C-alpha cells in the first residue's frame, strides 16, 4: 500500500517537474509547481505511515497505548506547514504572473528574456 502511495508521490513530482521544465504557459508552469508540491506532500505523508496503524488522534486510542497504535504524526505536522508554504509561494507566483502579463500582455515564458548575460 504505502509503496503505491509513495510511488504516486514520486510520479506526481516528476509530472510536476515536466510541467515546470517544458510548458510555455506561465499558468501551466504554476500548475506544474502545484503538482510537484502535491507529490512532495504525498511522499512526506507516506513516509510517516506505519503499517496497520491509525491516525494520531487520541480520541479512541488511549494515550498509554498510543505508541503502538498510531502512525507517525510528525510528517503530517510537517506536511501541514509545507502546504501552507506552498500556498504562499503559489499565491506569490500568481501575482507575479498577473503583473508579468500586464507588462507584456503575454503568458509565454519565452517572452520574458530581457535580462540576460
Amino acid at each position: 500500500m504505502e509503496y503505491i502511495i509513495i510511488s504516486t508521490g514520486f510520479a506526481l513530482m516528476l509530472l510536476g517537474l515536466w510541467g515546470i521544465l517544458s510548458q510555455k504557459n506561465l499558468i501551466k508552469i504554476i500548475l506544474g509547481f502545484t503538482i510537484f508540491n502535491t507529490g512532495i506532500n504525498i511522499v512526506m505523508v507516506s513516509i510517516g505511515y506505519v503499517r496497520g496503524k491509525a491516525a494520531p488522534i487520541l480520541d479512541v486510542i488511549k494515550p498509554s497505548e498510543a505508541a503502538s497504535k498510531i502512525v507517525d504524526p510528525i510528517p503530517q505536522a510537517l506536511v501541514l506547514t509545507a502546504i501552507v508554504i506552498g500556498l504562499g509561494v503559489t499565491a506569490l507566483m500568481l501575482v507575479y504572473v498577473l503583473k508579468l502579463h500586464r507588462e507584456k500582455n503575454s503568458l509565454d515564458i519565452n517572452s520574458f528574456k530581457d535580462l540576460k548575460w
Partner: protein
Amino acid sequence: MIKKILIIGVLAVVGLIFFDLFNAYQGNESLSKTANYYAENGASQVGAANLVTAIVVTYRGLDTLGEVTILFLTAAIISFILKFREEDFMPNRSVRVTSELLDSAAQVIVPVIFMVGVYIFMNGHLTPGGGFQGGAVIASGVLLMIMANPNFGVSHKVIAVVESISGIAFVLIGVLGIVLAGGFLDNTLLPLGKLGDLFSAGVIPVIYTFVGLKVGAELSNIIGTISHVQNEKN
C-alpha cells in the same frame, strides 16, 4: 526538440534519484524515536488529543510561527505589489455580471461556512483540523462572497486589524511562555485540562484561534487584493 529530449533525459535521471529514494524506503514497522516520544508523552505534556496539533503548535511551534509569517508575508507582498499601480486600473473596472443563483446561495451558505471554519480551528486540538484549515475555510467563504458579489469590497482596515492583533497575540503568547513558563511558546501557560475537552491542551486552542483568525484574514486579504485587479480592462 533537442530541448525536449534533454528535459526527458534530465527527468529520467531525476527518476533515478527517486528510484534511489524509493529503494531506500522500506515502510515503517514502528514509530521513529521522536514520534515514539510524542506518542508516549504528547498527551500528558500537551494535553491535546490531536497529536498532530500538539506537534504543530507546541513542539514545533516555531515552525508554525514561521508558517504564519509566510502567509503574512505573502499577503503583505501581494498587497504592495498590486497596489503600486492601483491608480492605473481602478477607475476602469468593469464589473462582471453575477448569477442570481450564486448570489442567493451565497447569502445562505456563507455564515455556515464561517461557522464551520470557526469550529475547525476551535477544535483543532481535538479533531483533525486546526487554525490553518479553519482559516482556509473562512477565506473560502470570503471567496464565495466575492464571487457572488463582485463589488464586495474586503475591508482592508478590518482585515489588517484582525491580522495584526492575532499575530501580535501569537507572539505575545510565545513571549509569555518565556516569562511565565519553560520557554518561548510554552504550552503550559494555561492549565492542560482534561484530554479531549474543548478547554484543554493549554494555550493550543487560544493560539489556534488566533492562527485561524489570522490565516482567514490573510487569505481573505490575498483574495480580496487579487480580485481588485480581476476585472481589469485589458
